[in-house]
């Protein structure tokens, strides 16, 4: 029998659970745990410069790897700083376990130094949370935390650990729990066969079908199955922002992504479809536009592991509760050997879609002319060429995020790492850091803007400490581009606080940390700068790319309209 203190149990549990990196920041209530981590060398702790970055780094790792990320922070401000990162993970269903120090049990409720009811604060943004009430509970609670975070619809789990629970003097038996049993938590493992059969019948009979798939296919590791199914049927597919890469974007059947800034052909196809096959997507308002005008002629099949996602905003005709992977596999076996009922209708449907495609071909944006500022779209296209479309691309939030998603072509899942649900500025850089540490031989690039980057730029110091060679492409338009775009469209170009005055000299700033910075002003400087940046995989390089501040993101759905109601440029609309 092995007797361990609570703190040592935590360190040992993380080892036994196979956690390689934990991101965090020490403080009073977490010091016993930090001491336990110091006395072992299997779990590597990465010291960030702000707790929010710890959560984003763990989140980035989780998104890229499909395994839960792990965070350790102290009580009070340490925990509250992590809140934005927890909410980010919650909105995008990312598995994460956040260990929070807490003041000692006898002080709880007394407004003790650095006391916050973090279980209360995070209640609406976690999948579940635990408070440790006795040190002997630690192994079981941690096992439950990781199990809950990673299964069913994944999400963040907070574990609140009062300081006396980790005291070195109190020792209890430690056994690594191999299994968890929770009477109130049994995530579904497969969909209802009858419903799946019904869905497949509808799929085979459809005349104007569209697959609409989301982040659930990525987190549910169902990309391969989805690709098989869609290819077998020969149907068009559009994905959500979170679902990008689940089906190869370079394939002809992929229409790109849909919604507010989705492709013209995706939104048009959705609007005119007679059957929508939604898998692991949640009919979010950034996708549907006005739900009352959403896809007026379509029947809807909705597959989701979370029953509460089904018929939440748009009523499903055939609801299927189940994990994307098993439902898709069952669909594949039912489709096999069957022919679609209306091949001629499908041909006609594709002609229509190809027509929409041709309508916008070469008109997506106007390339810069010699002597003009670079277009942000050009930068992303060049980035995609230089990295052969294989990089992990993280983004912050705003115009650059939409451009990255529109112009980088992703053929693999887990490669576009972006805060889709919460839309968290500051997410991209720490997320890239978390990914690069775990995938040191891959290209990891953060596409950001000068607004977002300044929200988390203190992490340059963390990258310096651990030699993290991420690349940063700063689309510098000296303004909060997306805010400015909305102000142009809705507020007669009154740019209230969307102009970033007093920007730092990014070149000097980056060099102050000992990294390389390259400033890019013109198109002919762009590709050489990118080549230079990606030449050494282990060097952090910052590209400060000056881009046209007047550029807007198009297409853009018209508010309160249908899927097909879009602005296509500053002068055209559907």
């Amino acid at each position, binding site marked *: 029998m092995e007797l361990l203190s609570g703190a040592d149990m935590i360190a040992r549990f993380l080892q036994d659970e196979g956690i390689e990196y934990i991101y965090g920041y020490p403080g009073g209530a977490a010091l016993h745990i930090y001491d336990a981590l110091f006395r072992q060398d299997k779990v590597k702790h990465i010291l960030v410069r702000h707790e929010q970055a710890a959560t984003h780094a763990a989140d980035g790792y989780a998104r890229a790897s499909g395994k839960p990320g792990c965070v350790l922070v102290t009580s009070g401000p340490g925990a509250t700083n992590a809140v934005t990162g927890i909410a980010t993970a919650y909105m995008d269903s990312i598995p994460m376990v956040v260990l929070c120090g807490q003041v000692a049990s006898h002080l709880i409720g007394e407004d003790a130094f650095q006391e916050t009811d973090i279980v209360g604060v995070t209640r*609406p943004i976690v999948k579940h*949370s635990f*408070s440790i009430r006795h040190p002997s509970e630690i192994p079981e609670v941690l096992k439950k935390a990781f199990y809950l975070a990673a299964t069913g619809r994944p999400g963040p789990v907070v574990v609140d650990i009062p300081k006396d629970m980790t005291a070195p003097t109190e020792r209890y038996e430690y056994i690594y729990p191999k299994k968890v049993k929770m009477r*109130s*938590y049994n995530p579904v493992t497969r969909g209802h066969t009858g419903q799946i059969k019904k869905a497949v019948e509808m799929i085979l009979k459809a005349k104007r079908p569209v697959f609409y798939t989301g982040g659930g296919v990525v987190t549910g590791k169902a990309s391969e199955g989805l690709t098989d199914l869609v290819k077998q049927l020969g149907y068009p597919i559009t994905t959500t922002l979170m679902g990008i890469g689940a089906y190869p974007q370079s394939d002809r059947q992929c229409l790109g992504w849909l919604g507010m800034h989705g492709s013209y052909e995706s939104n048009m196809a959705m609007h005119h479809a007679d059957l929508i096959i939604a898998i692991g997507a949640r009919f979010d308002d950034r996708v549907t536009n006005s739900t009352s005008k959403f896809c007026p002629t379509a029947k809807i099949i909705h597959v989701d592991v979370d029953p*509460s996602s089904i*018929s939440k905003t748009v009523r499903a005709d055939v609801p299927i509760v189940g994990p994307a992977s098993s439902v898709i596999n069952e669909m594949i076996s039912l489709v096999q050997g069957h022919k679609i009922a209306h091949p001629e209708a499908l041909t006609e449907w594709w002609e229509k879609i190809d027509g929409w495609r041709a309508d916008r071909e070469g008109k997506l944006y106007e390339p810069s002319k010699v002597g003009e500022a670079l277009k942000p779209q050009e930068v992303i296209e060049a980035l995609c060429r230089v990295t052969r479309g294989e990089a992990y691309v993280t983004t912050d939030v705003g115009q650059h995020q939409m451009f990255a998603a529109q112009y980088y072509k992703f053929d693999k899942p887990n490669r576009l790492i972006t805060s889709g649900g919460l839309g968290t500025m500051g997410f991209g850089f720490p997320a890239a850091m978390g990914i690069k540490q775990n995938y040191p031989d891959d290209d990891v690039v953060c596409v950001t803007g000068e607004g977002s980057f300044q929200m988390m730029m203190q992490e340059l110091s963390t990258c310096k400490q651990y030699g993290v060679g991420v690349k940063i492409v700063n689309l510098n338009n000296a303004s909060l581009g997306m805010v400015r775009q909305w102000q142009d469209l809705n507020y007669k170009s009154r740019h209230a606080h969307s102009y970033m005055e007093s920007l730092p000299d990014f070149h000097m700033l980056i060099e102050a940390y000992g990294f390389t910075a390259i400033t890019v002003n013109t198109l002919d400087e762009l590709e050489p700068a990118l080549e230079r940046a990606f030449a050494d995989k282990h060097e952090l390089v910052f590209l400060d790319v000056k881009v046209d501040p007047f550029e807007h993101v198009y297409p853009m759905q018209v508010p309160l309209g249908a899927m097909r109601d879009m602005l296509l440029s500053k002068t055209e609309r559907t």
Partner: protein
Amino acid sequence: MRHIISILLENEPGALSRVVGLFSQRNFNIETLNVAPTEDPSLSRLTVTTIGDDRVIEQITKHLNKLIDVVKLVDLTEGNHIERELMLVKVKALGAARDEVKRTVDIFRAQIVDVTPSLYTVQITGDAGKLDAFLQAMAPVGILEVARTGVSGIARGDKVLSL
């Protein structure tokens, strides 16, 4: 429409706040709420009455089921059920009104459980409608204090909400 949802909940600290928090977070409404441990001390039974159309009620039950602490739930209004609420009321009982109150108490099959020279404390059980009617009947006499438990309910017949 009004629904009565009965929930078996882990009897853990914080479990109730997750349920209550869910209602406010998702903009659902709670009319009454009633909670106590069951014969199995590891479980609480919580009964909530709420108002919403079918779509809202479907979302409420789905989101409740998603809470890790919720072990099982049933929407009692989907079938035949018994609903009861307990109310304690202090009413003025002076002069002629003293007899009048006593008579009304008998009509409603309520009980007087405490007496002072100036007031009666009345205990009454029934569905919410009966309790409301009693309060209405007492209003002219003078209601001094009301304590209602909120609705508790159980399905009629062989159906049982248990693990």
